[in-house]
Each structure stands twice: as structure tokens, then as C-alpha cells.
């Protein structure tokens, strides 16, 4: 759709490409160090930033062993996936029942404000009581972390779903009602599929937040002997000692899954993030 006479602004293009150095440099540094052997790291910048003599995968093998990579990865995927699925099911449901009733019912109006105001509660104040509470009822494990995420992301997601619901005319449901379908069935067969764009946004935001979160698993499941990817980095930090090559191989491994995911779903992720923030 380019109009004629529109010229490409090359100076800005070049400046922006140069600016990418700030993004690329830390990643470049990570890759270089991750592939090197400690003996190659002579104590100057050239030794650190030059290309490795050989692109050996030894560091990665060792880092995987030290940080129990596959188990941590599995736990991270399990927690994130389950959180996203449960969030989409539960948050869209509560968003639906609140969204359809809050304009004419005081109970739903208050419920809405009650849940959404949860957004202001910092984790710091919930942290200590939650550690006690989850330990008492046997939820100081991955299941507990998932339940907490579903609760923590509820305010934002309910806000998103109720906002989106305004675009879905109630006449659609009334038509189904005339055909004899129950509210429950109408929801799953008509409304839930129609909210698909919002499901995508909720999935992206919830997944990014839970995948990279350190604090919740740190305080809740640190006694369970299980790690998520970020938690493994924290817990095994001391084991790397001064072997930075091993440490960086591990950092690269920890970043790789989300980077690959981003490359594949870049468009959905960007539009999801924008939708979530702007709504």
C-alpha cells in the first residue's frame, strides 16, 4: 500500500540498525563465552569477545548435566502450559458471567471491582503468608504454583475478557436460547469460540509472565526439590564457581526455548502484548 513519492528514510533506518548493537551485544557476548573453554578466556576483552577456536557443544552437555536441564525445562513447560490452559478456561468464564451481569446487578459489579482491584496487591505482601498457607495444605509444590498463578493473573485477564465481551452482541445468545440451549452450552459453543482473539492475548501475556517468573516458585516450591528453568539458574549459580563458560552455556540454554518460541510466533506475541496493554 505504499503511496508514490514516499521515500525510504535511510538515515533513520541506518541509525536504528546501529542501535540494534545495544540489543545484540549482550547476546553476542553470551554466545561467544558459552562456546569457549576457560583456557581461551585470557583476561582481556579480546579473549572474551573473540570467536571460539572450535564450536564445541561440550559446555552445553556439561551445563545440562549440572543444572538438570531437561527436568527443569519439563517443569517450566508443565507449569506454563497448565497455567495458560486453566487461565483461559476459568478467566473467560468468570469474565463472561461478570461481563454479562455487572451493568444491572450490584453483586456482579462488586465482584468485578473486587477481583480487578487485586491488581494493586504486590506479591511482597502475599509472599510470607502464602508460604505458610501452601505448606499447611500441602500445596508447596508445582500444583500450588499453578493455582497461585491462576489467581494472580485473574485481575488482568478478567479485565481483558469483560472488555472484549462488550463487542459480542447479546442477541447471539438470545437466538440460541430460543433454540433451547442452556446458558452453559451456549457459552461453550458460541461465546467461547468468539473470544478467540482475546484467548490469544491472555495466553501470550500469562505465558510470558509465568515462564520467566522467579519469585513465586522460589518461595513456594523451593522445598520440593524441583526447579523451573529460572529457578535452576538461581540454585545452581554457586556450582558454576568461576567457570563462566559453563554458566553462560547454561544461560543460553535457559533463553533458547523462549527465543525459539518468539521466532515462530513473533506476530501473535507482539499483537498479544499490545492488545493486553492498550485495553
Amino acid at each position, binding site marked *: 500500500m505504499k503511496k508514490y513519492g514516499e521515500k525510504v528514510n535511510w538515515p533513520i533506518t541506518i541509525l536504528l540498525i546501529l542501535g540494534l548493537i545495544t540489543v545484540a551485544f549482550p547476546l553476542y557476548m553470551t554466545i561467544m563465552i558459552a562456546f569457549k573453554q576457560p583456557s581461551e578466556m585470557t583476561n582481556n576483552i579480546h579473549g572474551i569477545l573473540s570467536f571460539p577456536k572450535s564450536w564445541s557443544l561440550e559446555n552445553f552437555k556439561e551445563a545440562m548435566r549440572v543444572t538438570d536441564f531437561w527436568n527443569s525445562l519439563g517443569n517450566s513447560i508443565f507449569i506454563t502450559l497448565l497455567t495458560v490452559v486453566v487461565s483461559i478456561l476459568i478467566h473467560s468464564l468468570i469474565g463472561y458471567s461478570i461481563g454479562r451481569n455487572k451493568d444491572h446487578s450490584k453483586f456482579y459489579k462488586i465482584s468485578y471491582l473486587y477481583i480487578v482491584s487485586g491488581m494493586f496487591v504486590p506479591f511482597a*505482601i502475599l509472599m510470607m503468608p502464602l508460604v505458610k498457607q501452601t505448606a499447611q495444605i500441602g500445596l508447596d509444590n508445582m500444583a500450588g504454583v499453578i493455582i497461585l498463578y491462576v489467581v494472580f493473573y485473574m485481575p488482568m485477564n478478567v479485565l481483558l475478557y469483560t472488555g472484549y465481551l462488550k463487542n459480542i452482541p447479546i442477541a447471539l445468545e438470545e437466538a440460541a436460547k430460543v433454540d433451547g440451549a442452556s446458558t452453559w452450552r451456549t457459552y461453550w459453543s458460541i461465546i467461547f469460540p468468539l473470544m478467540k482473539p482475546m484467548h490469544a492475548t491472555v495466553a501470550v501475556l500469562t505465558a510470558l509472565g509465568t515462564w*520467566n517468573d522467579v519469585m513465586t516458585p522460589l518461595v513456594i516450591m523451593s522445598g520440593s526439590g524441583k526447579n523451573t528453568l529460572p529457578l535452576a539458574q538461581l540454585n545452581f549459580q554457586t556450582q558454576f564457581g568461576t567457570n563462566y563458560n559453563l554458566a553462560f552455556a547454561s544461560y543460553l540454554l535457559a533463553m533458547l526455548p*523462549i527465543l525459539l518460541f518468539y521466532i515462530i510466533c513473533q506476530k501473535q506475541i*507482539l499483537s498479544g502484548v499490545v492488545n493486553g496493554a492498550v485495553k
Partner: protein
Amino acid sequence: MKKINDRQRTFLMITIPILILFFCFNTLPLIKGVIYSFTNFKGYGSYDWVGIRNYIDLFQDSRVGKSYLFTFKLAVLATIIVNVLSLILALGLNSKIKFKSTLRGLYFIPNILGALVVGYIFNYFFTYILPEFNKMIGGNGDSILASTKWAWVAIVLVCAWQSIAMNTIIYISGLQTVPEDVYEAGSIDGATGFAKFKNLTFPLILPFFTINMVLCMKNFLMVFDQIMALTKGGPAQSTESISYLIYNNGMSGGQFGFQSANAVIFFIVIVVISIFQMNFLGNKEEQL
């Protein structure tokens, strides 16, 4: 009439269990936190009521005071830096450039990475790479992370590096809502360069500015991962954020009750700031 009742019953059966779940894992711990803040609970063993003792001590505790000062300094500075740079970057990425979507995609990468690992990578950068550059220009080659005077700058930089990506994307979507004919009308009136930005573009994307300010402030006030990865609060407790102090002393330092009081105050501060920001910036929007 029966159909309506069925519908209402369905809604209630959805809403009530979820409300209970939310209450149990959000409101209940919040209430417990407030209750703990009036005790001398260490995190284990028995405890006594101490009334508002913790709150009085809180305002006299220099370590707590220092952590509030540090956290606010960090949040305000990082918010300003991030918003200025994101706005510039967004204007660039929204102009008529080549490789537009590729560039946008690449600039967003820092945001998807975990703050902890990013912190570790920058930790190395500040410890081993930056001092070398410092020596080249005749400095003493000390790491800024080891300096009580400069360690906080490192944390601002790392926070900014990650957050700029997010804010830029929001500003870009803001800039895309500005219709082309506004600029055409503006150029007839002779608006160019900075005047065009100040009088036309900026007022129109003010709602997005509000979102970014609120998001930034809130996130930076709760900063934790970066502290954990870069300084662990040091050197000499100069970079202890409020969240870090509550975590560190509350969970393992035997100050469960005391840090609960700290968390209550922190909660109130967050609410007040968020409401203030939304009202203040909201009013400005209406005037325009």
C-alpha cells in the same frame, strides 16, 4: 420466568467458586499479612501481639528507609529514561524505514527474556568487560557493581534495557492511531520537527503515555530479579529494593512480623501512587 432463573443460577455457579478461590489465595493471605504485621512472629515458633510496635520501628529503621529511597530513586529514574528512549525509538520505528517489521521484532527481544538470566549476563558485563573499557580511558578499572556509589546505575541500566522493548511497542501502537490527515493539516499550518511532535503527536498519544508511566512505575517499584542477579542488595546494602528486603529478612532473617508491616506500608504506597498517577494523567487527558 424459569429460563431466566436457570441462567442466573448458571452464572452464580460459575462466579461463586471462582470468587472463593480468589479470596483464599489473594484476600486471605493479604488479611493474614496484616495480622502478622502486629506480631513479633519470627517465621517459626510462638509469637506475641506487639500492637503497632513494628510500624513505629519501621519508621526508625535506617535500613528500611534506605531501601525506600533506593527503590524510588531507581523507579523514577528508570521510568524517565525508559519513556524518553522508547518514545524516540517508537518514532523511529514508525517512520518510513526499510526492514520495518524485522527491526520491530528484533528490538522486542529483550522483553521476552527472563530478568534473572539477563541480570547474570549483565553482571558479567559489568564485572569483566566494562572495567576494561574503563581502563582504556584511564580509569581505575573497578567494577561499578562493587561501588556503593554506582551499583544502582547498573541496575537502572539493566531494568531499562528490558523495559524499553515493551514500552516502545505500546508507543508504536499509539502512533498508529494518529490519523494521517492530522499531520497533513499540521503541515499546512507549518508544524514541523519538534513543534509537530509536541503540539500534534504527543497530545494524541497521551493515553499511551499514561499506560507506560503506570506500567513502568509499578514494575520498577517491585524490582526483585535484577537485584537478585546483579548485587543481592550490596554493596553495603546500597541496592536493597523493598521487595528484596522483605524477601530476604522476612523469609530467612527472622523478621516475619516486622517485614509484614513493611509489606503493608509498601502495599499502601503502591495503591496511592497508582491512583495518583491515573487521576493526574487522566485529568490531563480530559483537558486536551
